């Protein structure tokens, strides 16, 4: 069976709808209903929100789940395309917290770097992710330099998206940071162990600098208030007559000063402040304060400090995990941890601080000093301590997102209950991304993202037969396989 793999050119567009119809026809009988309307009927539904529903049905209308329940209780409107999932298992679309950016493990390095800007819609990755049941994934800059950047949450609305926008669900979803040492291919910092302390202080220094930066602006706004008040006084006293001429300077005189200022902004801040407060001797009126420069990086960190931007910190070793807790406490970050290889050693701290942990890798297949304390029961132990546990890929080629569901199987081998293992790759990561109201479980009102398996989700031999995103079938395994 020849499969249409890639939308390569304009002539191809004619073929595509036909292929889609064929693909849909394999799964379904009826081909009517609106865009984003679909009913998956029969099969066992693991909603990730409650008990599994045997012989259930999911109705999706307009891309949203309209009803979930036993088949007898779900009212299926005529004309809605039905997928027969008899004997199958239906789970919510999987959510991967950290998928690799196609085209290489991109190191970030600055808070304002946006993963949304390195999306390649033509990459092979999207089909691969869908074929492994992942419908939502965050891609983020690598954290090899401590600070990664802004991660973007993607909804895989198509295996062959036409544009980056088609993929984007939330552009600047998380600030991604890293501590510790893992192989560079894992996107974690590549520093020697001796540098860990420095690493932490470097990271902390960025946050304190951001606070200083805010103070600079606060001072400026204060100076503006003062200036405005003085200016009004001058105006009322009649000192300013020719408004335009009063403050006008020869631009040429100003220029060297300005370019100088651009380069040496931070050092000059104090001097400037005095300057602004100083009244002009000639009595031309108050001198307007000079505006500090906008630092996009610091602005991002400030949003994190203000709790407007959640932070995902990649850390494996227990030292780094403790640092993560300290960082969170000091700057009141909305922080979740990814990696957490030695999380079981600090499970109490994490639980006490209310930090969620996305564990990865669960199945150890590579090596790094950070994985020294690795054990398969890590996720289970964290869960036992009361930490909300998710599982994640590691943003690199060594731990691909395709294995997310296998990781869940292995986590359940390590003692995580199958239900918790399923939640760890659906509802919990959705909550970490702040998207719990839209994705992560099969409940009425949420996005119609689901995956059809041929076995239980915690069986590694289960294969993804189909994936539905927002009511549209976006992936289907060949019939013959």
């Amino acid at each position, binding site marked *: 069976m020849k499969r249409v793999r890639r939308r*390569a*050119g304009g*002539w*191809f567009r004619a073929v595509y709808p036909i292929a889609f119809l064929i693909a849909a026809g394999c799964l379904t009988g009826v081909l009517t209903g609106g865009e984003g309307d679909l009913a998956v009927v029969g099969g066992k539904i693991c909603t990730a929100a409650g008990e599994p529903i045997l012989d259930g049905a999911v109705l999706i209308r307009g891309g949203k789940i309209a009803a979930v329940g036993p088949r007898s209780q779900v009212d299926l409107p005529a004309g809605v395309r039905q997928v027969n999932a008899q004997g199958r298992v239906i789970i919510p679309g999987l959510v991967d917290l950290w998928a690799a950016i196609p085209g290489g493990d991109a190191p970030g390095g600055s808070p304002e770097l946006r993963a949304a800007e390195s999306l390649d819609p033509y990459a092979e990755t999207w089909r691969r992710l869908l074929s492994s049941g992942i419908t939502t994934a965050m891609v983020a800059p690598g954290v090899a330099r401590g600070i990664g950047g802004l991660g973007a949450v993607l909804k895989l609305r198509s295996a062959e998206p036409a544009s980056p926008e088609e993929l984007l669900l939330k552009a600047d979803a998380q600030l991604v940071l890293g501590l510790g040492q893992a192989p560079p291919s894992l996107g974690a910092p590549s520093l020697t162990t001796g540098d860990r302390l420095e690493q932490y202080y470097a990271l902390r220094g960025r946050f304190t600098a951001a606070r200083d930066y805010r103070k600079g602006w606060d001072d400026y706004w204060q100076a503006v208030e003062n200036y405005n008040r003085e200016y009004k006084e001058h105006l009322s006293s009649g000192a300013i007559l020719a408004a335009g001429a009063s403050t006008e300077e020869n631009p040429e005189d100003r220029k060297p000063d300005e370019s100088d200022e651009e380069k040496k902004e931070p050092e000059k801040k104090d001097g400037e402040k005095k300057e602004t407060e100083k009244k002009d001797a000639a009595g031309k009126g108050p001198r307007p304060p000079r505006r500090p420069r906008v630092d996009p990086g610091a602005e991002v960190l400030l949003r994190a400090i203000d709790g407007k931007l959640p932070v995902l910190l990649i850390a494996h070793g227990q030292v780094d995990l403790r640092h993560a807790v300290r960082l969170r406490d000091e700057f009141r970050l909305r922080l979740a941890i990814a990696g957490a290889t030695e999380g079981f050693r600090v499970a109490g701290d994490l639980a006490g601080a209310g930090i969620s942990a996305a564990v990865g890798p669960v199945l150890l297949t590579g090596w790094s000093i950070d994985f020294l304390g690795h054990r398969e029961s890590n996720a289970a132990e964290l869960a036992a301590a009361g930490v909300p546990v998710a599982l994640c890929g590691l943003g690199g080629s060594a731990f691909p997102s395709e294995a997310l569901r296998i990781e869940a199987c292995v986590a359940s081998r390590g003692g995580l209950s199958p239900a918790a293992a399923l939640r760890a790759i659906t509802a919990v990561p959705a909550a970490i991304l702040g998207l719990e109201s839209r994705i992560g479980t099969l409940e009425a009102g949420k996005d119609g993202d689901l995956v059809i398996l041929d076995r239980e989700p915690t069986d590694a031999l289960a294969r993804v037969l189909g994936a539905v995103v927002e009511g549209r079938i976006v992936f289907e395994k060949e019939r013959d396989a």
Partner: protein
Amino acid sequence: MKSTDLVRNEEEPQRTRRTQRKTRVTSVLLCDPLRPLRLTLRRWFRGATRALSFAILAASTSALPGAQETILIRAARVHPVSSGPIENGEILVAGGKIAAVGRSLALPSGARVIEVPGEVFPGLIEGGAALGGGADEFRELTPHLRVAAGLDRDSRVFERALQGGVTTAAVTPGGRNVIGGLGVVVKIRPGRRAQQDVRVDAFLSASLTAESFAGNMNLRGSAPFTFYHRIPTTRMGTVFLLRRSFFEALGLALPAGLEAPEESTLGQFLDRSGKETLAETLCGARPLRVRARERQEIEAALRLASEFRVPVVIEGFGEGADSIGALSSSRSSVLLSPLDVSIEVPFDLTRPALRDAHRLPALLDAAGIEWAFASGSAAETPLLRERLGLSLRSGLTAGRALRAATLDAARLLGVSDRTGSIEAGKDADLVAVGGGGPLDLASRVEWVMVEGELLGQETGATR
């Protein structure tokens, strides 16, 4: 597959034979230094080749599926190369072989008919390119190494070459070693096996070009930390090593000056199997191929050829216009680079000798010297047909260029009994182009057939 190995036990019996050889050689050194040696070795070798070709035949008939179909090809024009073009010609292919060529052939029952609106010609033959494997760079003299042994037959370059109309290729070890090893002639066919090579150990490759010493480092005192600490580091060194190896291989006393001092740093000596391979080659078991492009390299190659009375195949020969006289006296032949022959090349004219490169085909033909094309690198092989088309700018006729890249190349590589022209009894290695002639740059390869199997069919733009 013992027969393909050409291997003898490195034990006792050899030694006696060798000593015998040596004594006989010294006694007749004055008349023809090498004649007796040549005779004995040649006799031995003939037996070996016979066994070998039989083995190949057995392998190729048994293990090739899908080539048994009978196909009649009708084309607007057929270029058999061995004879003039046939308008509205027909080719009957049966069992992977060409059964008949001509006009209005009888259509056997059950035969499949392929209509070609364009022209059909024999599959092109790459006269020599390093298509993978490469030479072993740990040593500079590796005559016994077989390119065939290290060749990745699933390399993409073969598929791409096939799409360009190249069906047979001589694979060389490249030019990094003074003596690189034994080349192989392969049919390009996906999934092909080593046992199905058209001709193993087809030639011995040596190199006198700058590649053989460029990048090598002089060793001064310290222990070598990389294998680029090897000789030669100069062109003189390259020629020295080659000449010394010849003497060594033939068991001749080294003339004064070639004898290495104690604790020689002047590179390795040949080991036993290396000597044997080289000796066989010098005695005519297979052609000796020497890469030489610049004038002094060509001169050195020809000097060696006349010194040791052995014909050489010179690969490159771009600056060889002045050396053609010496070439014909040593019964040597030439593999030209299509790019050298193209007129576009010497646009900077930095080396005046290259100005004559495009004229070489005419000069060689006038002197009656055998020549063919070798594009030299894996990147160029898929472009062979295009580059041949480009070489027509020098005034070379399309027919002559096509013959050089098919029948002449097959003869030079010793595979003209199998391929190189469209004649009854030969393998059905065919290329069909639409539109213009075989080497017309604007025409496109429509399909390629190797041993009766249709391959590399193009269906248009992205599929």
